[in-house]
């Protein structure tokens, strides 16, 4: 079994390849969402999952036993690659950028808990596991690429290499790109122009280095979504700020428009679903009682009771590229016990105590792999149709 470990260029595992290139047959799936919608968690926890084979809860429980054909890509030792683009000198009118790459590699694991703690510490340093999102940074963005495989290795067609991509810590680059269709690129070589950036509110009043960074980020994002085979849209259901709510709604509308005009498969993941009280009640019960079979109706909850805060918009999209029954999921990648600590459960499903002697436990993830598997499924369906 392949494992995952945090490393950097200087701490590279022996034998790790320097560059992890996307193979020609890899399918690309872009993950998009506003700041603090759960992109980082989604990438890091999934990467951890591939290496550690951690349990996933499915609400309601999946009849087929919860198996999904998603695996870490052991042919490529880099599971997760993060490249930070940063303005080093804000006063530099040329707006030079420095890039730094970090690689998370597959590596044999000796102590599951130790490894998990190591990952969690990495996230906590960045505040990802904390309850509140990071303050928006305007001097950097991070390109994230995660490699995995989809499909049973011993199946008829074998497994397929897949690549998940996003731009992280971008303070809204993704939201801006999809919200304003005047920014959209039409080819992988095109560039977002300074002129078209003026569609972004108050763009002209920004510092030159931030404007430049933003334009580059938009270009990078525009290019990789241009070549994407599918998109996963992460929506956060509990945004305290009205600005964030508006940003998310505008992003969602833009993404719907984008996939429609390009005929791309779209899968929606309503992240941080533990914030949806009614849903979380079911999660809690499922954690404590493994035999509990929830009758929770996700579609009804999202559409009829506006559980994601986007009922009308999702209703409008039903049948126009998405099916709310099959392509919209409630997920929670890092169920929290509060105060930024993940909910850990033991092998028997009991909650690990937060105080006293540390107990072995694994973090609870709810439905996290479902959107990814569905996106892969739709990409392969589309390819098969095209091939036919």
């Amino acid at each position, binding site marked *: 079994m392949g494992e995952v470990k945090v490393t950097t260029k200087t701490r590279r595992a022996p034998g790790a390849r320097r560059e992890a290139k996307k193979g020609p047959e890899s399918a690309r799936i872009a993950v998009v969402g506003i700041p603090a919608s759960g992109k980082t968690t989604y990438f890091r926890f999934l990467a951890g999952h591939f290496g550690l084979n951690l349990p996933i809860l499915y609400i309601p429980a999946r009849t087929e036993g919860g198996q999904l054909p998603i695996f870490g890509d052991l042919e490529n030792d880099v599971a997760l690659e993060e490249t930070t683009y940063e303005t080093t000198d804000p006063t530099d009118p040329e707006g030079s950028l420095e890039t730094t790459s970090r690689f998370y590699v597959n590596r044999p694991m000796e102590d599951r808990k130790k490894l998990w703690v190591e990952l969690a510490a990495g996230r906590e340093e960045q505040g990802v596991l904390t309850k509140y999102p990071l303050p928006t940074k305007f001097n950097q963005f991070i390109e994230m690429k995660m490699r995995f495989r989809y499909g049973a290795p011993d199946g008829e067609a074998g497994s397929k290499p897949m690549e998940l991509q996003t731009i992280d810590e971008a303070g809204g680059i993704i939201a801006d790109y999809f919200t*304003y*269709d*005047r920014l959209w690129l039409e080819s992988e070589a095109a560039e977002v122009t300074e*002129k*078209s950036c*003026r*569609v*972004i*509110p*108050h*763009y*002209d009043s920004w510092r030159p280095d931030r404007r430049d960074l933003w334009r580059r980020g938009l270009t990078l994002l525009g290019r990789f979504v241009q070549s994407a085979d599918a998109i996963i849209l992460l929506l956060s259901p509990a945004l305290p*700020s*009205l*600005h964030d*709510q*508006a*940003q998310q*709604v*505008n992003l969602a*509308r833009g993404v*719907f*428009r984008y996939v429609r005009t390009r005929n791309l498969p779209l899968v929606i993941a309503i992240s941080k679903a533990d914030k949806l009280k009614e849903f979380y009640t079911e999660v809690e019960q499922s954690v404590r009682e493994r035999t509990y079979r929830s009758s929770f109706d996700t579609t009804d909850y999202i559409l009829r009771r506006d559980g994601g805060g*986007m*009922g*009308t*918009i999702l*209703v*409008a*999209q*039903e*049948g*126009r590229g998405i099916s709310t029954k099959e392509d919209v999921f409630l997920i929670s990648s890092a169920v929290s016990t509060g105060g930024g600590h993940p909910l850990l459960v033991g092998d028997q499903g009991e909650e690990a105590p937060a105080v006293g002697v540390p107990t072995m436990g694994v973090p609870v993830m709810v439905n996290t792999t479902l959107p990814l598997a569905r996106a892969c499924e739709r990409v392969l369906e589309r390819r098969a149709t095209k091939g036919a």
Partner: protein
Amino acid sequence: MQDGTDSPPPPVSRERNVLVLDLSKSMLAPLPDTEPQQPERQKIEVARTAVFRILQDAGATGSLFGLVTFTETVRAPVPLGEIRKENLSYIENLISLLHPSGRSAIWDALAAGADMLRMGPRGVQGNLVLVTDGWDNASNRFAVNIPGQPPPPGGRVDLVTYMLPPQSALTLRVIGIGNGMERDKGVDGARIQELLNQMTRRAHELGLPAAFSFQEVTTGSALFVQMVNAFVDVGYEDDRPIEDLHPEELAQHAANAARALKEPQQHATVSRLKAGAASEPYSEAPDLEVDVLASATGVAPANLKERYGPLGEIVEAYLAGQFDVALGLVQRSVGVLPPVTRLYWEARVQFARRAIVEAARALLQAWNEVDKLPPSSQARILRRLALLQARMQNDKETETLVRFIDDTEHRLSGADPKIRDRLVDLFTKLMELRGTYQLTRIASGGDLQDAAVNHEAAVEQVFGQLQDARLDLASAGPVAEGALDFIEVCLAEMR
């Protein structure tokens, strides 16, 4: 036509106004007021005050303004041009130095005013207002032929033909001071009326619009009202300028405003609003100028009485907290103030006195009066009424929406008309989204999906227009940007 085609010339892009003011000696005579305790003021004093007011408006709106004065000599102290704020005090000083003397060359002065508005082959284009208290007794170039009376001396040019050549689009409004039944006691109403009749006939012969009117006034207040037909309002003490809002507060305001659009039953006032004056029918009813004075500090603006006559007194008493005095003044102003102005102020004062029923009754009558106004005056007055109604009903959402639209339009009043029209159009489109949104609330099953699809398509269309406006108005300034931000958040909230 110069180009040999029959297509009409493009309309004049900016409003062109010329005031022809009588400075004959009789303008020094006092003019009684309706209020017995009010000191009599000279006609020239009242006229000067009104001219200051008109100048200020021209400075704020960017319209073109010119002034012609006459005794036995005709002069043009302010040639037709844009009134710039920095030149305003200079022009006002100039007007304060105008001193009446001598006789009246009314016809020659009108001809000079028409010359100021003349645009070559397009004839006379613009609005002419004549203020006089006398009879023509000094013109030596122009004359009006009166049937049954001796013809004017030879060599005089017929004023009607001169003022109204083909292709013209002239509005002439005559304000006559005093009762002219007796010579030298007031305006020569008979001759003025004959002039207007002849102009109307000629306009019909040439197929031109005929917008010529004559009003006699006998008191200082009435003169003021005729010269400045106004609807004046003052802001509320808790008003905060848009530019003072934190972005999150702006978003909060927009979200509140969107609620007013989404819940029509709870915010019925919104359905009475009109966002702009586009594609409205032509009306000959005089425009009502709308002024909103800031009173955030609770201090009355200076010279209210001088600037707004009897309405200024009402506002002054209101701002001083003397609501009973203000109400008495409102009730005595019947016939002096435009009905919508009077009824609005009655409602406002009654509301301040906590007489809610009386306030509601007066406001209801004011709503009815708005329909009688020319469409160009309606939009802003409707918003002022809606604001008061929202206050009375403690409807914060409607209040926020109305305030934002009103403030934005007001701040853009001096801006490029294209920018203003574009934003007004966006606000209109935003308001129209109420309809598609409502359908998503009442539909079910397959109809719900159709309604949701239609609503989303409508939102996307407006959002596309918003993006284009962002790109085109990138350097239009903070007011335009604030309006676009507001609309953007509202659009996001319309889900």
